[in-house]
């Protein structure tokens, strides 16, 4: 069976996970290892008046208790946001200081004020409880709209009214004019709920300072170890890059939350130097809820206008984005360039304006979470389209179809230039798979059983494959978003591919091997993918934003191009043929039209023995490429959700979920389908189950699985997943990316379905049984009153 592009190759990485031999950070034990526990603020907002560690220091097994004064005193820098966003008045964003250990003030429950190092984890935790911190509590604000009000508690001195930036995109006047002239308009208040990413492996770090070499090693749960090293070196002054090795071994899921460099890694590195011990920290789940960057949390008002033929004439969106107490690494980009630039959806819209106010609150920092900005855009757009269709009394599918972009490239008014797609084809495929034509009969049958059945659509588009470095640089990014790859052919012909992408569940060890297998006609077992270690891989930007296929694999293709060129030269030389006649297939280098050939391993050996290679050629067979994409990619699709609601309890059962995605070229359909399944589950989780809840004093009420509803197997259906692809013209493999689509496309489909079922459009996520029941009661009361 072929193992190349398009083959459902079983995963090479599975065995170690299946037999319990995965190697996650917490599985590693260093010599001379000590354990860290953090002293965390129980207050959401308070002045730190004093820290008394004397009792803790005297406890059994305690090595040291270190605090923020010591950290900043040693020159460790503040944590920064790596993407500068400029307000519409031209002023830079107001980034408040964030020390890994708070010095003067704490700004959310869980903010770290000290780190305790002890011989055992229990000793460290007991001692952390014994550190006495004198706090002076301050007033608290947790909601973005309240934080912007006059007189709200002031969280950072340099951000008056807690406003980080007031940013806009698009033409406001033209949009207002278009909306004023619209034949129909729909206006909505839309909340995108706050989520906790909840990778099943909690974050962890082991920092080891080697005094002899002035060198640090950090094992950490990272999606991007090179970016971690860069930031730890360049901004936090932990150590210069050549004195810091960052290893992200097996990582148990990320979903965005493991992109960022958190206080804990910084503190562990510094503490390792201070104590001359390896310092290990592993988050527990409650600590994860309290400190892992949350996702989403938008409050939006939106207005869309249509002409008399139901063509969209304008869209105006105002969003308040809660960024929490500090600006996390990419927090500014998520609600701006990853959000408002997708507000055109799959539609031809001449006029769009979006204003985003980013706001500090006394909550955990908010940053990118699976989808990052694009689920928020898709939720706004697809709730608006469904609602507008209902208000205008037209078919929601026809309204969308009438407005689809049909010609490519298509320049939207909000930066993005869509390069390909066939939105109607995806919608057709999904409607057929869902048997939409028969839906009303199913609704009637459900009603006979006392159930309310509804159906909802969502036609999403996302921008992935981030991103062209010059383009994002012009928009404020502090880094380039290319990817690197190194292809090493060994003397025996086996191949190692070193990639700057990082796999934490995505199956890179298999998929990446498949494109090499395809190119050189080799079995995937002869190909090893190496990632996650800054000592092995020269550089890379990591895995997020569905970029590892479109960008990471493109880099491998470019490196393979160079390998192929050299192989052909060697082949032509050894086989005494013209380079133009050399072909590579089935693991051999052949002269076209003859039976002359070298087997692949013979080429490897020739390159390394260098006994008979072209004059002037360097020995060896190893090539590197740094690939910078020319554009974003634009995965898109149509999702259909069908639900049955129990009106007595408000319980929603998803009876059918259909996805039709356009991901461009698919390397391994099995893995791609798995990515879609997981994304849909997270999207359904957001729509039905998950919600971070703070009380007014800033205490996190949803701080464990007792109160934060994780999607479980019996909450979810099996999914009907389909593909209808157009090739992406922007990269050599034609790939668009698949990692986030499920989470982006599904929430509006679910809410559109439930609101269709219950006849009340006023429903926010998560649509818990209690909320759905209340919405049903409200609808009945309204009906009774009419």
């Amino acid at each position, binding site marked *: 069976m072929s193992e190349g592009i398009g083959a459902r190759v079983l995963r090479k990485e599975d065995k170690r996970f299946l037999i319990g031999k995965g190697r996650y950070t917490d599985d590693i034990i260093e010599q001379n290892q000590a354990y860290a526990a953090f002293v965390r603020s129980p207050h959401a907002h308070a002045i730190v008046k004093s820290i008394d560690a004397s009792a803790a220091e005297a406890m059994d097994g305690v090595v040291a208790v270190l605090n923020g004064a010591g950290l900043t005193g040693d020159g460790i820098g503040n944590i920064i946001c790596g993407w500068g966003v400029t307000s519409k008045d031209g002023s830079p964003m107001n980034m408040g200081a964030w020390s890994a250990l708070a010095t003067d003030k704490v700004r959310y429950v869980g903010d770290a004020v000290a780190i305790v190092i002890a011989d055992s984890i*229990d000793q460290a*935790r*007991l001692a952390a*409880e014994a550190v006495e911190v004198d706090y002076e509590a301050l007033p608290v604000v947790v909601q973005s709209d309240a934080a912007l009000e006059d007189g709200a508690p002031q969280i950072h001195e340099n951000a008056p009214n807690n406003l980080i930036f007031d940013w806009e995109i698009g033409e406001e006047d033209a949009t207002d004019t278009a909306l004023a002239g619209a034949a129909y308009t729909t206006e909505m208040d839309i909340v995108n709920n706050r989520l906790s990413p909840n990778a099943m492996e909690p974050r962890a770090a082991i920092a080891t300072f080697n005094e002899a070499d002035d060198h640090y090693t950090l094992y950490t749960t990272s999606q991007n170890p090179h970016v971690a090293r860069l930031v730890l070196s360049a901004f936090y002054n932990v150590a210069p890059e050549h004195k810091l090795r960052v290893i992200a071994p097996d990582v148990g899921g990320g979903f965005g939350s493991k992109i960022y460099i958190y206080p804990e890694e910084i503190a562990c590195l510094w503490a390792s130097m201070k104590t001359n011990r390896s310092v290990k920290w592993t988050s527990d789940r*409650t600590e994860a809820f309290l400190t892992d960057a949350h996702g989403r949390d938008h409050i939006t008002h939106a207005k869309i206008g249509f002409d008399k033929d139901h063509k969209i004439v304008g869209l105006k969106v105002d969003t308040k984005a809660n960024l929490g107490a500090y600006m996390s690494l990419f927090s500014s980009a998520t609600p701006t360039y990853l959000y408002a630039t997708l507000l055109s959806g799959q539609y031809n819209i001449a006029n769009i304006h979006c204003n985003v106010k980013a706001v500090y609150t006394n909550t955990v920092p908010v940053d990118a979470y699976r989808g990052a900005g694009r689920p928020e855009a898709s939720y706004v757009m697809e709730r608006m389209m469904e609602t507008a269709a209902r208000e205008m009394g037209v078919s929601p599918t026809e309204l969308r179809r009438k407005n689809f972009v049909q010609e490519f490239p298509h320049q939207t008014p909000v930066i993005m230039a869509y390069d390909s797609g066939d939105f109607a084809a995806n919608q057709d495929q999904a409607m057929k798979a869902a048997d939409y034509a028969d839906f009303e009969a199913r609704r009637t049958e459900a009603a006979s059983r006392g159930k309310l059945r509804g159906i909802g659509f969502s036609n999403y588009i996302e921008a992935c494959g981030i991103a062209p470095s010059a383009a994002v640089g012009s928009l404020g990014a502090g880094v380039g978003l290319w990817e690197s790859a190194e292809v090493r052919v060994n003397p025996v012909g086996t191949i190692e591919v070193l990639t700057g992408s990082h796999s934490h569940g995505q199956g890179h060890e298999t998929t990446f091997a498949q494109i090499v297998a395809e190119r050189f006609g080799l079995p995937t077992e002869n190909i090893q993918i190496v990632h996650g270690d800054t000592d092995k891989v020269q550089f890379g930007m990591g895995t997020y934003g569905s970029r590892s296929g479109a960008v990471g694999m493109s880099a491998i293709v470019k490196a393979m191009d160079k390998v192929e060129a050299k192989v052909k030269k060697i082949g032509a030389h050894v086989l005494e043929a013209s380079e133009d006649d050399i072909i590579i297939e089935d693991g051999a280098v052949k002269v076209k039209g003859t039976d002359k050939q070298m087997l692949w391993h013979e080429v490897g050996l020739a390159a390394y023995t260098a006994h008979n290679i072209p004059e002037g050629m360097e020995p060896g067979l190893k090539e590197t490429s740094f690939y910078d994409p020319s554009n974003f990619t634009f995965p898109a699709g149509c999702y259909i959700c069908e639900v049955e609601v129990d009106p*007595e*309890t*408000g319980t929603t059962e998803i009876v059918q979920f259909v996805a039709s995605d356009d991901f461009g070229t698919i390397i391994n359909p099995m893995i791609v389908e798995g990515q879609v399944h997981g994304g849909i589950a997270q999207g359904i989780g957001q729509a039905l*189950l998950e919600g971070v*809840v703070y009380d007014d004093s800033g205490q996190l*009420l*949803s701080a464990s*699985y*007792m*109160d*934060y*509803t*994780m999607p479980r197997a019996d*909450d979810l259906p099996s999914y009907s997943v389909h593909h209808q692809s157009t090739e992406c013209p922007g990269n050599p493999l034609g790939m668009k990316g698949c990692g986030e689509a499920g989470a982006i496309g599904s929430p509006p489909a679910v809410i559109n379905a439930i609101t269709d079922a219950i006849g009340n459009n006023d429903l926010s996520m998560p649509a*818990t*049984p*209690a909320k759905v*029941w*209340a919405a049903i009661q409200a609808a009945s009361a309204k009906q009774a009153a009419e």
Partner: protein
Amino acid sequence: MYETKYHKASSVSEAVSLMGAADDGKLLSGGQTLLPTMKAHLAAPSDLVDVSGIAEMNGISVNDDIVTIGAATTHAEVAGNAALQKACAGVADLAANIGDPAVRHLGTIGGSIANNDPAADYPAALLALGATIKTNAREITADDFFVGLFETALNDDEVIVSISFEAPAKACYAKFPNPASRYALAGVFAALTTAGARVAVAGAGDDGVYRHADMEAALDGNWSADAILGVSVGADGMLSDMHGDAAYRANLVKVMAGRAVAGC
């Protein structure tokens, strides 16, 4: 977890004396609630007295319509017991839906009722069945046993040995789980006993498990879901939290009661 001293008791009397000797002892049975609580530093017993292996606290018997369940009997054992299925399937089915399979392999009926979590299931069953809780010292009726939120009539160092009740004519439990914890957001156990209809509610009341007198009156002589329809369930006295307000819980109590009655 704070330091603690573990003891394995081989008899009820040994457990009682170990508890008596401890500064601040706690009985450990399945540990499915106690250990997570200790991990969270919310409990710090000086001593743990493990009663799970005590023979007289284990097992299920049905004699002359009297069902007796040892306090250290696990939820899985209760769920899978054939004699109990026959005598009172409602209790077996309730046990089959506590927690998850791994929790049911260790968690015990005695541990559940001693903790008296307002959202636990067993207290509603015992209350509705008019069960008797036998300890090392005495017998306590369920009506007297469950005092309030996480509160029981047990004295310090008192050990529950078994629970017994008369097999009812009908009994069924309907639970609406909290979406996150899967504990009861509202659970209703309805039983038709020789003393008449008895209905107990878990998860919803702000003072813990309680009997619903109006529903009992409505069901006496008219055991049907329709009888529940006529009962008004108000929001007063209902718990209210992020998973459901008092009005929603009141609705659930009524709906679950109807389903419990219809289910048997």
